[in-house]
């Protein structure tokens, strides 16, 4: 008697579970059926390349005053917080430095003085073999297959700063504080960043997408050329053919895409 009642209750429980599970299964099966009827595409004006590259003619950029408008153009359109006083918290996408800090590989003791005193423009090299991308645990930084730009997806960045440790060029900056109060000239079209993410130059991916050249190239009055490294007839390839160029820390094998004519 006792046993049979227990048995009855067990069966009833299992049946109830089965009946309850059926509508749930139906609900799951129904989900993800027909997707919405839209599609996304690259803009018609977008500039494309296999690997974007930059050639900076440092002969045309002799003084700090020559570099200023170039750096400013970038700072303005990308909402760079330039008012941060603490050097350790500084954010920079493109900046100026001395020859000795830029080209640490070159070990000649006695250099052409004119070159050694020239200011050099530094920015992310958009390496063909980027060590920062390998270091990123969330794929927040990635090398875009379509055009070789090393990009940041700020939404994914968790602020671990592995990429900063991995980058041999110091091209990355970390937002130690909320950058918004330190932005001097606001650009309404580009987002700011938030506290706790890493940022760097994006080769103006947002401008290339609408058919514009990068801001620094436009502001350089011809001193900076930009184009496809793997298109034989591109402006950068023509310049590379005709001029002797150097790159930063070539021995590391990251294959930087920014070339300097000295």
């Amino acid at each position, binding site marked *: 008697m006792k046993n049979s009642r227990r048995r009855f209750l067990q069966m009833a429980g299992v049946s109830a579970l089965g009946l309850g599970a059926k509508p749930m299964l139906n609900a799951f099966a129904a989900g993800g059926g027909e997707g*919405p009827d*839209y599609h*996304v*595409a690259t*803009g018609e004006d*977008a500039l494309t390349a296999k690997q974007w590259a930059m050639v900076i003619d440092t002969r045309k950029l002799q003084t700090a005053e020559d570099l200023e408008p170039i750096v400013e153009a970038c700072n303005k359109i990308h909402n760079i917080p330039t008012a941060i006083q603490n050097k350790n918290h500084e954010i920079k996408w493109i900046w100026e430095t001395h020859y000795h800090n830029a080209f640490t590989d070159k070990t000649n003791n006695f250099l052409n003085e004119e070159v050694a005193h020239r200011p050099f423009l530094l920015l992310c090299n958009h390496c063909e073999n980027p060590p920062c991308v390998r270091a990123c645990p969330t794929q927040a930084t990635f090398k875009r297959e379509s055009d070789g730009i090393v990009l940041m997806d700020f939404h994914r960045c968790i602020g671990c700063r592995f990429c900063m440790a991995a980058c041999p060029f110091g091209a990355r900056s970390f937002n130690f504080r909320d950058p918004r109060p330190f932005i001097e000239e606001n650009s309404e079209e580009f*987002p700011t960043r938030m506290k706790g993410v890493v940022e760097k130059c994006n080769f103006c991916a947002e401008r290339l997408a609408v058919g514009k050249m990068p801001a620094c190239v436009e502001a350089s009055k011809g001193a900076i050329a930009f184009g496809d490294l793997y298109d034989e007839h591109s402006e950068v390839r023509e310049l590379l053919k005709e001029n002797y160029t150097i790159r930063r820390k070539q021995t590391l094998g990251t294959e930087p895409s920014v070339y300097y004519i000295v």
Partner: protein
Amino acid sequence: MKDKKKILAGLVVFIAVITFPFWFNMGKAAPAPELELTAEAKAAKSCVMPTEYMKVEHMQLLDVWRHNVVRRGERMFVNTDGKLFNMSLSNTCLDCHSNKEKFCDRCHDYASVRPYCWDCHIDSPKGE
């Protein structure tokens, strides 16, 4: 079953305590928020997708936009009617819905969701 009374009393107290939030707040439900459309949004009649779809799925759509723009450089959105849009939160969505406080925020506050879009994306592209 010697403690029948104690058990019953305990049960009553337990149920009273557990259901406290329900009967305490009975009849005090906050009214569903009323969204205000800007003149521009009203004139457009339909968002990038039909209103019903946008109400339910705008977050999924924004996620698709984010992924395609940031990671694949695809910025053009072609909707069901074949209309083109630039996929941009600040420059397309907020161009029409320029009253974020009366549109986005009202519903988000009501539903107690706190999207962190505005930590980076500028919420008044026209400087309103």
